[in-house]
């Protein structure tokens, strides 16, 4: 059951110019969590930033909670540069749906940017409980510097990297690389797991994903409550009759990409 906790930072590591690993001591009583769930942090007690900031759980062990934080604005900046020992208000774990482990053990993960975090949590969780076999990560970032290969080297059988500027690996985004791998017969079948910018997931949903049995994705949105109360993070999901709005924070974060009404979803 979700709750309010205070987390103490016990380790931080600058992974790239913008990305930081922030490791908290697992707060006493912090519930177990599953891949696709997130926490929501009150980064300062001032009014800037005002709202909590949501971050995917990248790992949760008996003693530690890991987050991957990319600096994109004030909140992430303050968090990324918080010193060891700092105590931060953490609410969670939030998210009503999670990634199920692969049916036939093998899995393809597609991550864009910090979408890497839930993919790592999935791979680690399923390795721990032995439900993961071969794990291919298709991983895209803007440039070589932001490609956090050191972080995910051990969690996947193979990491297929792409950079927009071509500075490392495949030149293009993760979707284009996935398509190439699918065409070459190097990926396909089973469940496709993804997380990344909505544009990436949207592009993938229509194309490459067709070659997989299912495409499950963890979505993002600006959030206020994180618990399904404010209706601020809705996404249109297809139903028999038409569309209903679901909240990413509590009906998600994990959705079957084929059920999302991409056309009606204007961010």
């Amino acid at each position: 059951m979700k709750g309010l906790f205070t987390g103490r930072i016990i380790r931080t590591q600058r992974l790239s110019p913008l990305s930081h690993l922030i490791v908290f001591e697992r707060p006493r009583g912090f519930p177990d969590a599953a891949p696709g769930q997130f926490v929501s942090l009150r980064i300062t007690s001032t009014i800037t930033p005002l709202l909590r900031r949501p971050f995917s759980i990248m790992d949760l062990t008996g003693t530690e909670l890991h987050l991957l934080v990319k600096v994109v604005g004030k909140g992430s900046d303050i968090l990324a540069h918080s010193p060891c020992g700092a105590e931060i208000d953490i609410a969670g774990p939030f998210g009503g749906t999670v990634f199920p482990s692969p049916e036939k053990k093998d899995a393809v993960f597609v991550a864009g940017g910090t979408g890497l975090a839930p993919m790592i949590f999935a791979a680690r969780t399923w390795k721990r409980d032995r439900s993961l076999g071969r794990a291919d990560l298709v991983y895209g970032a803007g440039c070589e510097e932001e490609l956090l290969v050191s972080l995910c080297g051990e969690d996947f059988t193979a990491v297929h990297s792409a950079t927009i500027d071509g500075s490392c690996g495949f030149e293009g985004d993760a979707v284009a690389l996935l398509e190439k791998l699918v065409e070459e017969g190097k990926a396909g079948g089973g469940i496709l797991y993804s997380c990344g910018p909505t544009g990436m997931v949207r592009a993938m949903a229509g194309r490459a994903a067709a070659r997989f049995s299912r495409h499950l994705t963890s979505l993002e949105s600006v959030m206020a409550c994180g618990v399904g109360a404010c209706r601020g993070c809705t996404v249109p999901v297809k139903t028999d009759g038409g569309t209903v709005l679901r909240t990413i924070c509590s009906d998600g974060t994990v959705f079957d990409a084929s059920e999302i009404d991409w056309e009606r979803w204007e961010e």
Partner: protein
Amino acid sequence: MSRHSLETKIGAVTLRNPVLLASGPAGYGLEYEGLLDLERIGGVVTKTISFEPREGNPGTRLHETGGGLLNSIGLENVGAEVFFSEKMPALVDAGIKPVVSLAAEDWEDYRMLLDATAGTVGVDIIELNLSCPNVERGGMAVGTNPELLAKYVRHAKDTLPGMTVLAKLTPNVGDIAALALAAEEAGADGITAINTVVGMDIDLAARRPVFKRIRAGLSGPAVMPIALDAVWRISRTVDIPVVGVGGITSIADAMKFFMAGAAAIQVGTAVFYDPALPERIVETLEETGIPGPLGDCSRMKGAG
């Protein structure tokens, strides 16, 4: 140490204490389980419902500004039927006092909604959200016109005998106290002030307004001086209780609203970042008692 009783009477209803969750941020109440102890607070003003379910607005719905939050949820709600058959009973079962928030797009809608409310056991206090755009008025809020507002309030009092009726006002008017007076004269048992302040923002990179509907509603610390001013003036204009809401972010803020003349308060936006705040306010009030309203320091004069 003896604890102060915080029981608060509004119309025919007695709340266990004067600290409520505001309509909208509160959702249907139970979403915050685990984060805030709903039995400790005076009640939950549920998300405004309309007669039919509503989808709300497309596009971005939330956007942070300097000290504030803009929202364009657009009254997404499950509709009266689901609300009264599922959401409200669950709240009551959990020991929570619901204040039911109602709104309508036009008069016909409104009548049906009140009829649906009349048939429901367990509802003894409603809050009329008079701030939403009204179709008949070309999208203008009912709450910006004294006659229309009075008509809506009077109809609620007529249709729902014995029901305690709060009229929730919009600050987007020249003189909110005049509208409060109109509501009182029409029979309202209390005034809730304020709803969100109209504002907008622009997405620089995309070169377009942040919100599809362009205009959105501002809440949070930024609007607190505006809300406090509204409560101060309204409580000096009407004799019915005033429920203060707008930007309450700390225990001190809550105390200021009581001093300004509020009989009860609501916490909205702050619940998002500090869900334990309402409980902390209740605890403090139990220790200190509810601060009395300030005297009439001086006659009201315009600002410089």
